[in-house]
């Protein structure tokens, strides 16, 4: 079974929710990214979104933009990225989602890169600027390789679009908590609960929520409504700080522990 599917089956049996960290590959360094992934798993992360850097991340806020720039400056390319996936996979069975924008993957060759990612140990793709309408070619590639193609749904997504998304989506559905870019926010939009509940009711796939989630309270609120939470910028921000790795590692470990706790409560 695909590792993403297996993770959600296991969580359902345990009546727990998914914690899905997003980190930018190669930040603060290549070895550190691998350590970070293993650390997050040891603290209870269920799926890892590993950001493949793109020069023009138009749906990302400042923190993820900075991480992508840092990675590109360090020369993180397809080989370095897949090297990290392999190194994580050598020590862990955590499902890995390749998270990026379409152009770098398109340029590297959709078929070719997907095959290499699969061989390295990746389990799925999420390409922010490849909406369902433009996905048929890559969908075919992913199906053949038993990779999951994950789509975003947004507060602006109409019920008709949602049906279309759900027909094509696999793995899980990633619901964007608010209209906007990635980054930490204090609260949720006014209609968040109502919209998420409607999406959850319409979806047979697990639904997780991301964008703007950075506190244990937000993770807890989300877990009461759906199948898990994605936390990105709150973690990535700490990987960008100018601190020695052991100190950074400890800080992230403590933060991850607090963020993950609500997802591991047994819920009826």
């Amino acid at each position: 079974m695909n590792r993403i599917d297996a993770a959600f089956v296991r969580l359902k049996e345990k009546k727990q929710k998914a914690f899905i960290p997003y980190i930018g590959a190669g930040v603060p360094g290549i070895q550190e990214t691998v350590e970070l992934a293993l650390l997050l798993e040891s603290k209870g992360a269920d799926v890892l979104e590993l950001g493949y850097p793109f020069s023009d991340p138009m749906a990302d806020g400042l923190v993820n933009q900075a991480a992508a720039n840092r990675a590109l400056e360090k020369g993180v390319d397809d080989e370095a990225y897949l090297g990290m996936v392999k190194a994580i996979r050598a020590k862990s069975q955590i499902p890995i989602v390749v998270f990026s924008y379409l152009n770098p993957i398109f340029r590297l060759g959709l078929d070719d890169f997907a095959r290499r990612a699969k061989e390295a140990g990746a389990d799925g793709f999420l390409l922010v600027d490849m909406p369902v309408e433009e996905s048929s070619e890559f969908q075919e590639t992913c199906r053949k390789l038993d990779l999951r193609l994950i789509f975003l749904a947004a507060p602006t997504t109409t019920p008709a679009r949602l049906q279309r998304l759900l027909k094509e989506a696999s793995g899980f559905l990633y619901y964007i908590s608010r209209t906007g870019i990635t980054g930490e926010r204090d609260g949720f939009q006014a209609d968040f609960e109502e919209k998420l509940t409607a999406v959850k009711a319409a979806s047979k796939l697990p639904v997780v929520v991301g964008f703007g989630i950075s506190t244990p309270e937000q993770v807890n609120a989300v877990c009461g409504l759906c199948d898990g939470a994605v936390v990105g910028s709150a973690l990535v921000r700490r990987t960008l700080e100018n601190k020695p790795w052991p100190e950074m590692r400890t800080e992230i470990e403590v933060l991850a522990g607090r963020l993950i706790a609500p997802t591991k409560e047994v819920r009826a």
Partner: protein
Amino acid sequence: MNPGQLPDAWGRFGPYGGKYAPEVLMPALEELEGFYSKVREDAGFRNELDGLLRDFVGRPSPLYFAERLTAHCGGAKIYLKREDLNHTGAHKINNSLGQVLIAKRMGKKRIIAETGAGQHGVATATVAARFGMACTIYMGRVDMERQAPNVYRMKLLGAEVVPVDSGSRTLKDAINEAIRDWVTNIEGTHYVFGSALGPHPYPMIVRDFQKIIGEETERQMKEKEGRLPDWLVACVGGGSNAIGLFWNFLDKPSVKMVGVEAGGEGVDTGKHAARFEGGKLGVLHGARTFILQTDKGQIAETHSISAGLDYAGVGPEHAFYRDEKRIDYVSVTDTEALAGFNTLCRLEGIIPALESAHAVAHTMKLAPKLGKEQLLVINLSGRGDKDLQTVMGAA
């Protein structure tokens, strides 16, 4: 080939174009597409737009016989389509006006736009002021410095100008930032894309509002010469002024067309914005097209003396007609563009935008090789007041 049938229902011009946008934007793009398909057939909308194009913009823009430039080149008879004489000094207002009228009818209260040279920003700020709408313009920090007069103009017109400090701090980065604003403020905000770029339906809408340039040119040339022009020359950044001039003639096989890209310091130096010569197929800002990028698909930094041509991607409709061999694409360097700029100043008493100076520069190579009976039209897409600082710096 029937240009009227493109793009198809998916927003594609052959293999180019499409709608590669984050999910938050997809419903807004669908809404815009649906609304536009109704409004384009609506007589009330057309009348309001035509009235404003005439009385506010000053259309039709003249088709002017450049007598001394013609004599200087010693070949084809050169005409200038004077888009520089439009209100705000460029062709950009044709599109800004159309899109703001749509936004108003959609009930939007706020307008955002990106700008490179500042011409699209000024045009959009102008129309937003005219209709009392809030307006935010994103502009790369580098462009704000080299097009300072336009920044001040936008502010006078009541727009907020937001400097963009990411990436190369030019047009590409301004588009990223405008998209980030739009995904955040999608309710109530319309993004006035300034060139024939971006996700469907933008390349189609921008073209439709710019094709008046070619329609007028045909009528005016028939009045002056009794026939169609033989050659059309226009600069291509995103490509809105070029498609605006060319589109009406695509189905007239006797009319030859040349799009001029920014060769910067020379295509072999890597410091340029010649997407067709140096670029590869990719996806940027919503469209599949030719893009200057690394082998690994990271967007390359571009260079041009002209801010309006300094962009990594080219409009998808241009990519299609290049494949069809209907439009030819060439590039001229910064140095050649400056020579074109100076020549037009001295010979015709017209200070062209550095963008348009690229079309002048190519014409100076092409026209001498053509017979004196050949009729050539340069799209003089904008005026050069904004560029004085750059030109003085280059002298």
